[in-house]
């Protein structure tokens, strides 16, 4: 029983991080209809940048975190300017392939700059665990879960109550209508990419703090965050968190019980199995927007 509770707790906590990564993906999809296949790559590179600032340049860890977030916002604006703007009006698949290429580019840059190594970030969150009864929860997880909730709250509030949020929703519905109402589609793209890459930076640093800085971090984007996004619904912010929790819990429990039986590796495919199931049963995801058909 204790083991189950521990797996459950782990699952909830790791699910928070998956949800955070997926939040960035959903934000980009919600506003620009682009599936950002470079999200994992950005996550990884921001982790490397943080390591580089602290270990290679010697900055204070908190200063480098802030600096990385600033860089990520600039990167978001840059991606909009260089990649999205020329492709406005072109089929969306072109943009998705462009993000795929961007992901590979980032991976290559990381190898060129820092080699194919694994490094650790200096400790800025205490590594010790907090005990809740029989369950031990590392403090990292609590922090990242908390940050995920805060960011999620900010995004939900702005989508529902601010003009910027309404503008993003309108742009994701119909770009021509958005322009006819006076909304600058380019500005909306720039804002959402900047925000989403800032989320990528935060989640990349948190993930690196939890595990390590390595080039394999980018797999989180595709292997974990994408199933979370599909499970929760492509356009749904709450779906990202809920999906993250579900994937985290199933991965942790499934991996915990079955990994020892098959020699490991089952936990890696759990998110993908869940993605398959949801696509067969309810393709729009739990909270996704159904295609409205008037009969």
């Amino acid at each position, binding site marked *: 029983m204790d083991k189950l509770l521990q797996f459950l707790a782990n699952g909830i906590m790791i699910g928070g991080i998956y949800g955070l990564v997926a939040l960035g993906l959903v934000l980009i999809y919600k506003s620009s209809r682009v599936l950002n296949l470079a999200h994992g790559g950005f996550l990884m590179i921001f982790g490397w940048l943080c390591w580089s600032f602290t270990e290679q340049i010697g900055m204070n860890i908190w200063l480098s975190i802030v600096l990385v977030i600033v860089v990520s916002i600039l990167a978001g604006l840059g991606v909009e300017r260089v990649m999205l703007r020329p492709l406005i*009006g072109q089929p969306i698949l072109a943009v998705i392939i462009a993000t795929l290429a961007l992901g590979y580019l980032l991976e290559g840059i990381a190898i060129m700059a820092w080699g194919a190594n694994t490094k650790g970030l200096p400790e800025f969150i205490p590594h010790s665990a907090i005990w809740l009864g029989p369950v031990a929860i590392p403090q990292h997880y609590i922090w990242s879960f908390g940050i995920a909730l805060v960011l999620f709250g900010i995004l939900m509030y702005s989508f529902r109550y601010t*003009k910027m949020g*309404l*503008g993003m*929703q*309108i742009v994701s*519905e*119909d*770009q*021509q*209508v958005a*322009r*006819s*109402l*006076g*909304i*600058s589609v380019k500005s909306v793209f720039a804002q959402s990419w900047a925000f989403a890459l800032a989320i990528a930076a935060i989640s990349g640093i948190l993930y690196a703090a939890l595990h390590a800085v390595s080039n394999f971090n980018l797999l989180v984007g595709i292997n974990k965050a994408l199933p979370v996004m599909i499970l929760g619904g492509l356009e749904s912010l709450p779906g990202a968190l809920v999906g993250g929790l579900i994937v985290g819990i199933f991965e942790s429990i499934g991996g915990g019980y079955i990994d020892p039986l098959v020699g490991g590796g089952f936990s890696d495919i759990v998110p993908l199995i869940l993605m398959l199931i949801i696509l067969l049963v309810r393709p729009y995801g739990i909270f996704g*927007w159904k295609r*409205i058909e*008037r009969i």
Partner: protein
Amino acid sequence: MLVMNAVEVKYLDVILVLRGVTLEVADGKIVALLGANGAGKSSVLKATSGLLATEQGKVTDGSIVFNSVRIDRMMPEDIVRRGIVQVIEERKVLEHLSVEQNLRGGAILRKGELRSDINMVYDYFPRLKQLRHATAGYLSGGEQQMLVVGRAMMARPKLMLLDEPAMGLAPLLTKEIFEMLKRYNGEQKAAMLIVEQNARAALSIAEYGYVMENGRVVLEAPAAKLASNPDVKEFYLGLSELEGKKNYREVKHYRRRKRWLS
């Protein structure tokens, strides 16, 4: 207020759609733009509102001047700021948002409290008030048309461009919507340029009218004169002066004599 002078519009740099269109919309007046399919009427509206840019079109010659400012090279976002709002054809509501969110979207550029404007729209279209929390994509055609017109009203435009508001609507509903447009024009003093296939409905509320054919304006007159013009009656209002069964040979030769119909 709006003056188009010899405007030429091309799509993709090669498809010539407007061949020198000159028209004018005076302050606070309703002007109808009639014509068969493919005449270029929607392009006139899109050139004015700047939405040509979203369809790879460009104004390649001539000028469009709104209140002494040239707007033919402006981005649609700036043109909306100046008070020109287009109601795009085919009732493009924001499907997954609610009716009230759609209306708020219409006023997204405006600052300040929107409650009184929303109530004004509900006053013009009471059915929208009953549907205010409904998902816009599931509304019927007539309700969606009311919603897109209401959305345009929220921006408090000085000039409203309407692209085929009566398309696909039942006659009674068409009458209702056009009456509301006339009322809006009277109370808010907003000018309107209405493109319509339903010439009868359009001419019933317009003060002036233009007839377009193949990218040119071929006839212009005050609306009453246009409605009683025999050619307009025959080709757009479906009323024929020829007795008995329609003799198509006569029609063909009659049309041939009228050069502007070539």
